[in-house]
């Protein structure tokens, strides 16, 4: 797929979703917001995969953003945009500290440290009286001026974030990320600061996850510690894997498909875990490049026929 076509694909899906908000009624609108937020989570996961690391801490940063928003709304009356910015900012600061310490380890160790961090934070929330303990925080509503347009706002912002990540991926910096994944030592030998670059990549992805968490808190109005367990990272992984991690379009397609299917399966009384589990297993085994890869394959076949 050419770079140009991926941009168009993402923008087209965004337009389709916005149309869904406009014409689909209230439930479809909510569904669209979930898709958009899920797509950002999966894109953030994919962004760290550019340097070859599976970032299980993304659920933790999503949670940090959501809890920061929840705390501000409940305890301090700050403007909406500032709340959003502070939530992303907190995720940024924490991710720089966390990444600065942990990105020295790689592969399975990095994965499991992120897993431990996510679970530790979850237990931490339950013990914090100010964060509502186990019951979580309630009453996180968007401001009155935005309330009617919140679904549009979230969808547009989410897709801007996704396009932003894609822009960075296509920049010079993004090329260094991929080079680090392919061979760290080569990158180092030509004078790049590998560790610093890794932290930058991790911090960008975590900030985006934090912002998504903030949007999630405003969209759901209620948050609780169990929302941000490691299962969230596994779900994001499912979106990514089903969509295909090679293309930036993949996470968006995976999120759209799985969120819709899950909502449909819910009304059939289906077990969500079986559905997501089956989706991951089948796509890993039979569709290693995901939906995006499948689409690519089909087009190439068509071209070769023509």
């Amino acid at each position, binding site marked *: 797929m050419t770079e140009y076509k991926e941009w168009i694909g993402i923008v087209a899906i965004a337009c389709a979703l916005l149309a869904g908000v406009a014409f689909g009624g209230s439930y479809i609108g909510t569904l669209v917001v979930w898709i958009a937020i899920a797509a950002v989570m999966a894109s953030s996961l994919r962004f760290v995969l550019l340097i070859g690391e599976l970032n299980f801490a993304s659920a933790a940063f999503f949670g940090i953003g959501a809890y920061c928003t929840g705390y501000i709304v409940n305890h301090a009356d700050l403007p909406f945009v500032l709340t959003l910015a502070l939530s992303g900012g907190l995720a940024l600061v924490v991710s720089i500290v966390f990444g600065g310490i942990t990105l*020295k380890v790689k592969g399975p160790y990095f994965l499991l*440290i992120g897993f431990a961090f996510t679970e530790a934070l979850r*237990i931490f929330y339950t013990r914090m009286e100010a964060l509502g303990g186990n019951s979580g925080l309630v009453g996180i509503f968007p401001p009155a001026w935005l309330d009617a347009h919140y679904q549009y706002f979230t969808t547009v912002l989410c897709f801007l974030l996704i396009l932003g990540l894609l822009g960075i991926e296509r920049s010079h910096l993004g090329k260094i990320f991929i080079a680090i994944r392919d061979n760290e030592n080569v990158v180092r030998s030509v004078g790049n600061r590998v560790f610093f670059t890794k932290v930058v990549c991790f911090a960008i992805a975590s900030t985006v996850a934090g912002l998504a968490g903030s949007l999630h808190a405003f969209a759901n109005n209620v948050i609780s510690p169990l929302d941000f367990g490691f299962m969230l990272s596994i779900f994001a992984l499912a979106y990514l894997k089903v969509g295909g991690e090679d293309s930036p379009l993949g996470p968006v397609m995976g999120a759209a498909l799985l969120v819709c299917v899950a909502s449909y399966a819910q009304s059939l009384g289906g077990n969500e875990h*079986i559905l997501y589990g089956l989706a991951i297993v089948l796509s890993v085994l039979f569709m290693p490049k995901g939906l995006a890869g499948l689409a690519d394959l089909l087009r190439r076949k068509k071209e070769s026929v023509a």
Partner: protein
Amino acid sequence: MQEVFQLLFTALQISAVYILFSLGLTLIFGVLKVVNFAHGQLFTFGALVLSLTMGALAPSLGHGWAAYLVAGLAGLAACLAVGLVIYQFGFKRLERDMTGSFILSAGLVLLFEGLMLEVFGGAVRPVPALLEGNVQMLGLMVSRQRLVLLVFAVLLTAAILTLLRYTRFGKALRAVAIDYEAAMLQGIAYRRIALYGFLMACALAATAGMLIAPVAAVTPTLGDAYLVKGFIAVVVGGMGSIVGAVAGSLLIALLESFVGFYFDPSIANLAIFVIVMVVLLVKPKGFFGND
């Protein structure tokens, strides 16, 4: 002093299951370089099959050793069959692909948990104790079933260490773990060794699950807590290292027992997660890791 002794012994008992669990994880990582998240599900599956078979056998065999033996073999066979399927159709295609195989195992976790809930239901399944009652040992009260578990864990660990150190198969397995390409050049059938290693790990998980069943709440979510702890043990000890898995399990059990006693059980959980991060900062490969 008595208190400390009791806590030390408690830690030893808890670590027995963690050791059996993490040995399997580390074995799989050693031969396949796969982080198998679905290990906990096999553990649970073993316990569930045991309870089901015990229930079915109760009218004819009662709850004696014979029933345990038959049910245990059934659990083992069921887990090995599932393990074989997972390996042949799953991990074999993704060998040495760390990310891909991890994602596959994460999918298997969700799938198995959902399926087991549908098939076995959410109710707690009673499993009668193999040995009832307590014994007094060095001034400590210990339940007999726990003692059986401990003895089994020690024997199995010893057997595995011997197997790896002194047999041809064990040597081949270790060679594969260190450098599989070099091992293949030496004429070691990598595929076969990897399969046996994986099945051995499945058997360990099933055994651990079936040993803990009489003293645990047997439900489809039984393995979750052990998975987290087992993983932390392996990471702290060093992935792929057998000694590391044992040491890591002991450390986790000690923390759980002492922090849980002197502070609060919920803080103990937090402490375990904090410790793993600290350890990895000091020793990024764990205590005994060489990979």
